[in-house]
């Protein structure tokens, strides 16, 4: 499977809206239908099926279709694709998934399973064939290790590898080892990604290193894209990632067999193509110049724009202003707190402070923000290096230009030395 940057969703359908050519739409529909048939013919890998789960959890078909239509819209597909999206959702149990965690807080896993009532995403999460997930599986130790190896072999080239968390590279990766064998996370990612059809970086830490990579990044953490090569990587950042974006990416994969169109940092454009700010419900207050100036002031009570409280919506690409969290219940700005830019690269160091960017004076103390001790060390070493270079340069210059002078002086009598000096002076002139 290759990474098609002009994949079906973005290339053929983006920004065409109602103007869209009907025959094109029909062709696309047919293509999806064929692909869905293919997937349906595959053996379901998990015993759970979505329709059964929906019945069990008393979620009506109507609930499900509402979800499907929201998902279709989120994927930037016209409404006629609703049925296919719904069908793709029921086929998610055909995809083998291996989910590994490194330097993280398991927040992205939690985002799926900690909703108040079972959401459609949560049920979908149950139906996908989760072959391995440290936090959720019953097996432990060597047993779980074995499970991972078997799954990786059995579904070689077919499984989706989900990586949650950053990957420490310092000390040969010793900062994070996984399992009874003590394999480093770095090795694990490299090994498992080689056999995967697709790698999904789940959450901010897998995206650009997130919080583990924040200054001074003691473990030399990096994101998944820096480690994986040869297998397409889709990043679904945010802290935590929105389950909708994860499920949507999988549905896209079921429908097309390919990764969606990605931006330059590997985020799906359908989810991360717009600024929070451009779809924010408080945007009118922004343009009007009405801002919250203090927590709890009258502006805050009237849902004014949070820009002056440090909202980073104008710099952050994500769809939470549209799809929101927890089945569309609400989202951070909706409850009155500014965006902290959690889906942006290196957000912790560059955006996550509750002040406007121009008044954020958060540099590390010490010379040029190098830190207190480390700054002194670097300053000292730099000084030493300059002195060293100076000494060497001086020694070389003396050796080249000055040696003759010394030998003349040493081998002649004092009067000759004096005349030698004069001669030299002339030469110098």
């Amino acid at each position, binding site marked *: 499977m290759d990474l098609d940057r002009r994949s079906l969703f973005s290339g053929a359908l983006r*920004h065409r809206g109602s103007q869209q050519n009907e025959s094109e739409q029909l062709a696309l529909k047919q293509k999806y239908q064929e692909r869905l048939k293919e997937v349906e013919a595959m053996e379901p890998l998990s015993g759970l099926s979505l329709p059964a789960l929906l019945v069990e959890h008393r979620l009506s078909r109507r609930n499900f279709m509402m979800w499907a239509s929201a998902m279709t819209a989120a994927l930037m597909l016209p409404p006629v694709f609703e049925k296919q999206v719904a069908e793709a959702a029921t086929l998610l149990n055909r995809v083998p998934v291996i989910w590994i965690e490194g330097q993280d807080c398991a927040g992205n896993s939690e985002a799926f399973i900690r909703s108040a009532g079972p959401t459609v995403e949560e049920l979908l999460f149950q139906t996908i064939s989760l072959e391995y997930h440290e936090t959720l599986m019953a097996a432990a130790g060597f047993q779980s290790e074995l499970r991972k190896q078997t799954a990786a072999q059995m579904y070689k080239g077919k499984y989706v590898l989900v990586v949650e968390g950053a990957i420490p590279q310092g000390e040969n990766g010793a900062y994070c080892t996984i399992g009874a064998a003590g394999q480093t996370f770095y090795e694990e990612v490299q090994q498992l990604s080689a056999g995967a059809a697709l790698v999904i970086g789940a959450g901010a830490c897998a995206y650009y290193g997130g919080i583990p990579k924040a200054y001074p990044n003691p473990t030399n953490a990096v994101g998944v894209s820096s480690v994986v090569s040869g297998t397409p990587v889709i990043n679904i950042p945010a802290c935590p990632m929105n389950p909708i974006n994860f499920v949507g990416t999988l549905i896209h994969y079921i429908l097309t067999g390919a990764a969606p169109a990605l931006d330059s940092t590997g985020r799906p454009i359908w989810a991360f193509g717009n600024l929070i700010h451009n779809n924010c419900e408080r945007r009118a207050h922004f343009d009007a110049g009405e801002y919250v100036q203090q927590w709890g002031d009258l502006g805050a009570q009237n849902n004014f724009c949070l*820009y002056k409280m440090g909202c980073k919506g104008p*710099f952050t690409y994500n769809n939470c202003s549209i799809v929101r969290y927890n089945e569309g219940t609400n989202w951070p700005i909706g409850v009155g707190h500014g965006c902290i830019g959690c889906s942006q690269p*290196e957000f912790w160091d560059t955006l996550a402070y509750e002040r*406007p960017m121009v008044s954020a004076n958060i540099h590390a103390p010490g010379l040029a923000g190098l830190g207190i001790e480390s700054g002194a060390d670097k300053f000292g070493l730099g000084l030493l290096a300059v002195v060293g270079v100076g000494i060497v340069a001086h020694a070389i210059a003396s050796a080249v230009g000055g040696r003759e002078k010394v030998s003349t002086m040493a081998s002649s009598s004092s009067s000759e030395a004096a005349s030698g000096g004069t001669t030299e002076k002339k030469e110098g002139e």
Partner: protein
Amino acid sequence: MTLDTPTYSKHSTKTGQVEAYQRVQRVTTTWRIIHWVQALSVVVCFITGLFIAKPFIQTSSIYSALPFPIMGWSRALHFYGAMILDTSMILIAYLYLFSRSHRDITDLRPTPEHRSAFKEAALNFITFNRRRRFDTTKRDPLLAVMFVLLHLLLLLQALTGLQLYVANFSDNLSSVGSWWPQFLHFTTDWTATVFGGNVGVRMTHLTASWLIIAWAVFHIYYEIWRTIMWREGDVGIMFSGSKYVRVKDDANGS
């Protein structure tokens, strides 16, 4: 630079000496229009830019908004000002290199003559007008170099500004077609790599704006200083296009 046919104006100084002045044509009307359009755009962009970075005006009562969307207008004016600056810079670059009357780029050739004029002008400035050993009828060599610096700053501002501007577009949608954002991405995306992402570009844009304002303050001071110290009406160049130089009046034996 054309010296007019002698239109001397004579003044008696306290000591009874008579000073004669001659008018020197210095800049064309086009040049003056560009200058003032750019100056105005810089001022507009700076003020609106400050507001965009940190809105400093807000009505005291939350129940009555300002009668117009102030942030909306600030951004609009900032962008219009920037567009004017950017296009006028293209015009200037063209005139600079290919003008039919005078190609300013030739003033920058580091010939011995130019170098000594630049050195003398700079020394004259830092010695508080103690040594005027260069031709003040011609373009100030110090300022000629300073203007190059300003335009490099404006270029940096244009590139970083357009990068921030296109980052705000939804994918490749724009009112004039998708070629425009694509063009902006193509020409300015490298700034994100060089300056450290969107935040780095923003910080560079802010820093450069202060440098430009510092430059403008120096420029205004230098023009006024020149006018006062040289007594040749230099400040008038950008208003009337000409200045006056003192001519030695041999008849008075001065």
